[in-house]
C-alpha cells in the first residue's frame, strides 16, 4: 500500500505526478511538490535515522531547515552528501537516500546498545575517560572517530560545478514570508533595487500552511496577488531556494542558492549551486521564527513532532502523520493545528500546561469533541520505533511538582508547541544585541548595529494584523532612507482564527526531581544532550553558557541548536534561579546552515585554482620530453632526459655540453621591467646598492636590491638601452615583488621622480645560449657584429637574429661565453627551432633549471631566495664590491651600520668541499661545532646549495657559516639525518674558472 497516510483531498502536491524514490533500498512513490520528509510520512515511514550518541530511533521533528533529527545521506557515488535535512529535500524522480549513524540497518542497529549503557556516557564522558595516560589518546582516537560522526563524505571527486556571484543592491530582504514579501513590495514600489532571498521553493512562509483572511476575504488569494506583483517589478530580484549563510560587517551577506540540486538530471550548463556575495546599502531581516519543542521524558521518539510541522504536512502536503493525535502545548495558537487535524479525520486530545483556557477555544474543542487536559504535562512516552503511548500527570504549579494519578493515552502522533523563537542567527552575526522577552519567553532583537531593519516574527512580533502594515511600511521607510520616493501606505485587515498571544515557556517537565534519573529529556536532539546533562554541567562547574555548550555539546550539531538553544538557556536559568538575561546566550557564527565547501571554492578549483604560466617555447619542451618544475606560477623545464636517463645522468650530460660546446636555456620567465624617464638613473641609484650614473648606453650591469633593513631581496642585470631608457631583469619568482617595490617608492616617497615602470616579462622570449661555441654558432644567424672587440662582455646590442628583430645581452650565469637573445615572444619558438636546427653541428643541448643551478654554483653565483633568506646582507654574501661607498644614500644603506649588521660573527657565504669527495650534502643540513649523538648541538650554519659537479667530478656545496671568512681552509662537521657525520673543508665560493676568463672570451 502506497501513500496510506495521504488525506483524501487537500495539500498542494500534484497527485497527477507520481515520483519514484528509494529510501534505505526500498522503493516508494511520492508526488510532485513533496519533500523527502513528507513523502516518507505519507508512506508511513517514521523511523529516519539513529541519533548521534545513544543511537536512539529518530523521526521527523520539523518541516524546515531547523530539522535536527531527520538527516540523511543523499545521493550516490561522487555526488553523495551526508547530513541532509529530509525536510528540505525536494523530491525528484530516482532520488536515493539512506539513514545515517546505524549499522547494520536503521531498524536493527548494534550501536543502539549505547542507549542502555547511557549511564556511563554522560556529558564530558570522553574528556573524563580518555584523558589518561596522555600518550594513549592517539590509540583511543582511532576507535572514537570510527564510532562517532554522522554521515559519510564522498570518496570520489565532486563532478559538479559551483559558481559565485558578486551582487550589489540597495536593499536585501532575507525571508520571503509575509513580512519579507510586504517589505519587498513597499521598497519595490518605491523603485529601489531589491533582492529578496528565501530558502524555500515557494514564497509565503508560514501563511502557506495556515488559514487566514485579508479584508475578510481568503488570504491565500491575496498572497498570490502580492507575489504576482513582486514578480512583475523589474527592480525586484527574487531568489528562491537560497539560504542567507553569513552576515558580515557593513551589510556584506553571503547566500547559497541551490540551482540544480532538486533536478532529476544534472545540468551541463547550470551550476549545482551558486554562492552569492551580496553588498547591500540596507538589509531587512524577516526570517521568521522557529517553534520551540517542549522538554519531557523520551520526547525524541519518532511520531513526536512540532505542531507547526504537523500543520504543514497536513495542509501543504496532504499527509496525516497520525490518526490518534495528542497536542501538547503551552499556548493558544497551536490549537489551530488540533482543529485542522480533527477536520481531516484524526482524533485529537490536548494536553495543555496552563490552567486557564480562552473561552472560544474551549467551546470549539467541545464542538469538535477534543478532550483537553488543563494544567497537565506529558511525563513519559513509550514505543520502540514510533510513539504508541504517553503518560500524563497533573501539574501543581505552586509546589512545582506533579500530582495526582498518572494517566495513559494511546497515540500514534504527538504534536508539541512550546512557543516560538525568532530566528535571530543572522541578526546576531551582524553584531545585533538580543534581550530576553518575558512575555514570549525568548530572545528578541534589541539593539541594531548595522544599517538594518528587522521585522515581523523575526523581531518578536507575531500578530498578523500588525505585521501586515508594519512590514509594508518598513519597506517604504528603508527606500525612503535611501532617498527613494514615498509610496502610498495601505491598510490591510488580517485575521487568523486564533491570534498569537503570550505563551509560557515550559523549559522542561515540572517535576524537576525526576529529570536526573531514568528517562531522557532531550534538549538538543541532534547531539543527544539531555536535561540531565545540563544539570551535570552546572554541578561540575561549567556554569558559563559557553562552557555548558562545549561540555555538553548542546547547540553544536549541524543544526546549530535552532530548536534547542533557548530551552537549554531556560533550563540553566531555572537551575541557577537567575533571569535568562543574566545567563546570556552563546555566539552565533556563520554559516547559518551547513553549506558545501564546493560553493565557497566556486570556480577556483583545478586548473582555475592558480594560473599556470607557460613560455612561448613551452610546447617544444613538452614535445621534447622535458621534465618540468614549478617556479612560482611558471612551468620551467627541469631537465631534458634522453633514452631513459635519470636526472643525474641528464644533468651531467647537459652541464658538460655547456662547458665544452653549446647549451641553450629558455630564460623567458626572467622578470623584465622597462624603465623610462629622465630620472631613471637617479632612481636606479636609490634602488640598487651600486652606482648607475655612469653606465653607458649599450652596457649592462649586475645589481643587488636590498630592503631598508639592508637585506638582499632580489638581483638581476639592468641594461641601458637609451638616454632615459633601461631594461631591468629580476629573478623569475621575484618579478611581481620587484615591480611593486619600484612602484611603492615612486608613488609614496619620490613623487617628484619622473620614471615609468612597465612589466615586459611576457613580451620577450629569452633564449640563453652558452658555451665556448656560442659566438661561432650565433654569428651565422645574426647581422650583429659579435667580435670580441665590438661586442664585449656586459654589453648590449640590437639587430636581427634569424630575421627577427632582437636584443642581445652579453651576460652570463654559467661562467661561459654566453648571449641572452631576446626576441618578441611570438617569435620565441620559431627562433628556438632555428637555433636547434643550426646548432646541430655544435651538438646544441637544451638544458633545464637543474643544470643552470649546477653551473652557476660551480661559479659561486648566488640565487636569491636559495642562498639568501631575507636575513642576509651583501656583506654576508662577500659582495661588498657591489655596495657603493660613494653614494650618499640608497635603500638599505643606513642599515649597514646598525649594531646587528656590523657584528663580525655573522654568518658568511662560503664554499664547502666534502673530504670524502663523494657525499652530496643535503641542502638545509646544519654545520655544527661538534657532532654529538643527538641534539642539541651548537650550530654554526647551514648548507644552502649542494650538487655533484660534472665539470669537476666531485660534489660542491655553498653554505652560510658563522664567521666563515676567517674559517677558510678549516674543517667543519655536518651531521646527517641518517646518523652519518660528514667532514668538509671550508673554501672559497668559486669552484671553477676563478679568474673569470671563460665568459670574457
Amino acid at each position, binding site marked *: 500500500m502506497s501513500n496510506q497516510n495521504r488525506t483524501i483531498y487537500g495539500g498542494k502536491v500534484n497527485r497527477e505526478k507520481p515520483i519514484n524514490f528509494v529510501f534505505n533500498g526500498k522503493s516508494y512513490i511520492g508526488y510532485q511538490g513533496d519533500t523527502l520528509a513528507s513523502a516518507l510520512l505519507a508512506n508511513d515511514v517514521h523511523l529516519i535515522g539513529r541519533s548521534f550518541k545513544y543511537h536512539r530511533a529518530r523521526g521527523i521533528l520539523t518541516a524546515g531547515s531547523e530539522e535536527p533529527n531527520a538527516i540523511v545521506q543523499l545521493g550516490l557515488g561522487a555526488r553523495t552528501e551526508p547530513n541532509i535535512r529530509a525536510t528540505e529535500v525536494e523530491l525528484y524522480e530516482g532520488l536515493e537516500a539512506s539513514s545515517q549513524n546505524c549499522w547494520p540497518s536503521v531498524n536493527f542497529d548494534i550501536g543502539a546498545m549505547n542507549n542502555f549503557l547511557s549511564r556511563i556516557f554522560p556529558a564530558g564522558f570522553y574528556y573524563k575517560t580518555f584523558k589518561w595516560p596522555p600518550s594513549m589518546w592517539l590509540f583511543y582516537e582511532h576507535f572514537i572517530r570510527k564510532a562517532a560522526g554522522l554521515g559519510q563524505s564522498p570518496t570520489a571527486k565532486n563532478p559538479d560545478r559551483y559558481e559565485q556571484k*558578486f551582487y550589489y543592491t540597495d536593499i536585501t530582504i532575507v525571508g520571503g514570508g509575509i513580512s519579507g514579501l510586504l517589505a519587498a513590495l513597499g521598497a519595490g514600489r518605491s523603485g529601489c533595487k531589491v533582492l529578496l532571498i528565501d530558502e524555500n521553493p515557494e514564497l509565503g512562509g508560514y501563511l502557506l500552511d495556515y488559514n487566514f483572511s485579508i479584508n475578510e476575504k481568503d488570504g491565500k488569494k491575496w498572497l498570490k496577488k502580492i507575489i504576482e506583483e513582486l514578480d512583475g517589478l523589474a527592480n525586484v530580484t527574487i531568489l528562491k531556494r537560497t539560504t542567507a549563510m553569513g552576515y*558580515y*560587517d*557593513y551589510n*556584506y551577506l553571503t547566500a547559497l542558492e541551490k540551482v540544480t540540486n532538486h533536478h532529476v538530471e544534472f545540468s551541463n550548463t547550470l551550476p549545482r549551486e551558486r554562492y552569492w556575495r551580496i*553588498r547591500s546599502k540596507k538589509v531587512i531581516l524577516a526570517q521568521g521564527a522557529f517553534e520551540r519543542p517542549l522538554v519531557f521524558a523520551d520526547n525524541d521518539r519518532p511520531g513526536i513532532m512540532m505542531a507547526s510541522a504537523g500543520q504543514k504536512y497536513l495542509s501543504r502536503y496532504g499527509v496525516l502523520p497520525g490518526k490518534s493525535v495528542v497536542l501538547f502545548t503551552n499556548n493558544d495558537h497551536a490549537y489551530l493545528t488540533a482543529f485542522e487535524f480533527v477536520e481531516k479525520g484524526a482524533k485529537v486530545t490536548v494536553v495543555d500546561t496552563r490552567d486557564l483556557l480562552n473561552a472560544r477555544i474551549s467551546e470549539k474543542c467541545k464542538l469538535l469533541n477534543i478532550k483537553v487536559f488543563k494544567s497537565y504535562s506529558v511525563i513519559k512516552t513509550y514505543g520502540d520505533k514510533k510513539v504508541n503511548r504517553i503518560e500524563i500527570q497533573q501539574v501543581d504549579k505552586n509546589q512545582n511538582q506533579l500530582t495526582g494519578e498518572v494517566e495513559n493515552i494511546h497515540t500514534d502522533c504527538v504534536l508539541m508547541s512550546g512557543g516560538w523563537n525568532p530566528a535571530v542567527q543572522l541578526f546576531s552575526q551582524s553584531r545585533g544585541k538580543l534581550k530576553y522577552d518575558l512575555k514570549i519567553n525568548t530572545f528578541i532583537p534589541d539593539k541594531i548595529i548595522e544599517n538594518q531593519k528587522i521585522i515581523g516574527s523575526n523581531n518578536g512580533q507575531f500578530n498578523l494584523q500588525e505585521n501586515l502594515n508594519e512590514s509594508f511600511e518598513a519597506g517604504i521607510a528603508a527606500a525612503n532612507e535611501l532617498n527613494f520616493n514615498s509610496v502610498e501606505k495601505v491598510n490591510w485587515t488580517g485575521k487568523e482564527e486564533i491570534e498569537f498571544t503570550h505563551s509560557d515557556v515550559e523549559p522542561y517537565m515540572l517535576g524537576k526531581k525526576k529529570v536526573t534519573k531514568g528517562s531522557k529529556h532531550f534538549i538538543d536532539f541532534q547531539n543527544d544532550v539531555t536535561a540531565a546533562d545540563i544539570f551535570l554541567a552546572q554541578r561540575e562547574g561549567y556554569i558559563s553558557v559557553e562552557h555548558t555548550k562545549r561540555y555538553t555539546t548542546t547547540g553544536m550539531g549541524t543544526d546549530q541548536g535552532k530548536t534547542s538553544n533557548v530551552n537549554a538557556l531556560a533550563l540553566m536559568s531555572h537551575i541557577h534561579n537567575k533571569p535568562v538575561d543574566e545567563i546570556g546566550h552563546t555566539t552565533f557564527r556563520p554559516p547559518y546552515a551547513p553549506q558545501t565547501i564546493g560553493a565557497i571554492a566556486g570556480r577556483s578549483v583545478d586548473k582555475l585554482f592558480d594560473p599556470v604560466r607557460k613560455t612561448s617555447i613551452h610546447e617544444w619542451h613538452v614535445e621534447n620530453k622535458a621534465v618540468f618544475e614549478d617556479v612560482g606560477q611558471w612551468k620551467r623545464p627541469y631537465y631534458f632526459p634522453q633514452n631513459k636517463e635519470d636526472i643525474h645522468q641528464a644533468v651531467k650530460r647537459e652541464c658538460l655540453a655547456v662547458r665544452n660546446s653549446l647549451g641553450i636555456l629558455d630564460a623567458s620567465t626572467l622578470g623584465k621591467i622597462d624603465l623610462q624617464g629622465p630620472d631613471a638613473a637617479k632612481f636606479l641609484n636609490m634602488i640598487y646598492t651600486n652606482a648607475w650614473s655612469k653606465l653607458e648606453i649599450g652596457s649592462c650591469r649586475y645589481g643587488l636590491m636590498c630592503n*631598508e*633593513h639592508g637585506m638582499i631581496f632580489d638581483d638581476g642585470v639592468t641594461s641601458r638601452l637609451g638616454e632615459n631608457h633601461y631594461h631591468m631583469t629580476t629573478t623569475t619568482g621575484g618579478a611581481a615583488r620587484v615591480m*611593486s617595490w619600484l*612602484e*611603492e617608492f615612486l*608613488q*609614496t*616617497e619620490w*613623487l617628484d621622480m619622473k620614471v615609468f615602470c612597465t612589466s615586459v616579462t611576457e613580451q620577450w622570449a629569452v633564449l640563453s645560449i652558452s658555451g665556448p661555441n656560442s659566438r661561432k654558432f650565433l654569428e651565422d644567424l645574426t647581422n650583429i657584429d659579435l667580435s670580441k672587440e665590438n661586442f664585449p662582455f656586459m654589453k648590449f646590442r640590437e639587430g636581427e637574429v634569424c630575421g627577427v628583430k632582437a636584443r642581445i645581452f652579453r651576460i652570463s650565469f654559467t661562467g661561459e661565453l654566453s648571449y641572452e637573445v631576446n626576441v618578441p615572444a611570438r617569435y620565441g619558438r620559431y627562433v628556438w627551432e632555428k637555433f636547434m636546427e643550426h646548432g646541430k653541428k655544435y651538438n646544441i643541448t637544451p638544458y633545464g633549471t637543474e643544470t643552470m643551478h649546477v653551473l652557476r654554483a660551480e661559479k659561486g653565483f648566488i640565487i636569491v631566495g636559495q642562498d639568501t633568506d631575507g636575513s642576509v646582507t651583501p656583506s654576508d654574501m662577500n659582495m661588498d664590491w657591489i655596495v657603493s661607498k660613494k653614494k*650618499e*644614500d640608497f635603500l638599505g*644603506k*643606513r*642599515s649597514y*651600520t*646598525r*649594531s646587528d649588521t656590523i657584528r663580525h660573527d655573522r654568518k658568511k657565504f662560503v664554499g664547502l668541499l666534502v673530504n670524502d669527495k663523494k657525499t652530496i650534502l643535503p641542502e638545509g643540513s646544519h654545520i655544527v661545532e661538534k657532532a654529538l649523538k643527538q641534539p642539541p648541538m651548537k650550530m654554526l650554519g647551514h648548507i644552502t646549495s649542494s650538487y655533484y659537479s660534472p665539470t669537476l667530478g666531485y660534489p660542491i656545496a655553498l653554505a652560510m657559516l658563522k664567521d666563515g671568512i676567517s674559517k677558510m681552509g678549516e674543517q667543519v662537521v655536518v651531521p646527517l639525518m641518517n646518523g652519518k657525520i660528514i667532514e668538509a673543508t671550508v673554501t672559497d665560493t668559486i669552484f671553477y674558472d676563478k679568474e673569470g676568463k671563460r665568459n670574457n672570451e
Partner: protein
Amino acid sequence: MFIINCPYCGERDQTEFTCHGEAHIARPDNPSEISDEEWGRYLFFRENPKGTHFERWTHDHGCRRWFNVMRDTVTDQIIKTYKMGEAKPEISNE
C-alpha cells in the same frame, strides 16, 4: 569585508586591494646623519592604535595606485580615502 573608495577609480570591492600598514612614515631625508635609534624608529616602530588609523593601500586589481586610507580599527569603518601627498585628515572627536 567592505567597499573602498579608490581615489582614482571609485568604489570597489575590498578584495581588489592590499593594505600596506601605517601611512605617513616619511623616509628620513638624511639617513646617514641620524642615530641608530632614529633609524630604528623609522624601520620598526608603528602606532597600532585602537580606533582611527592611517594606512597605505594599493588598488592591485585595478589602477595599481597607492593611496591613503583613514580607517577605524575597531569597526573597520573606512572614514576617508585620499591621494598620496595629501595632508593627513584631522581625527574628529565625535
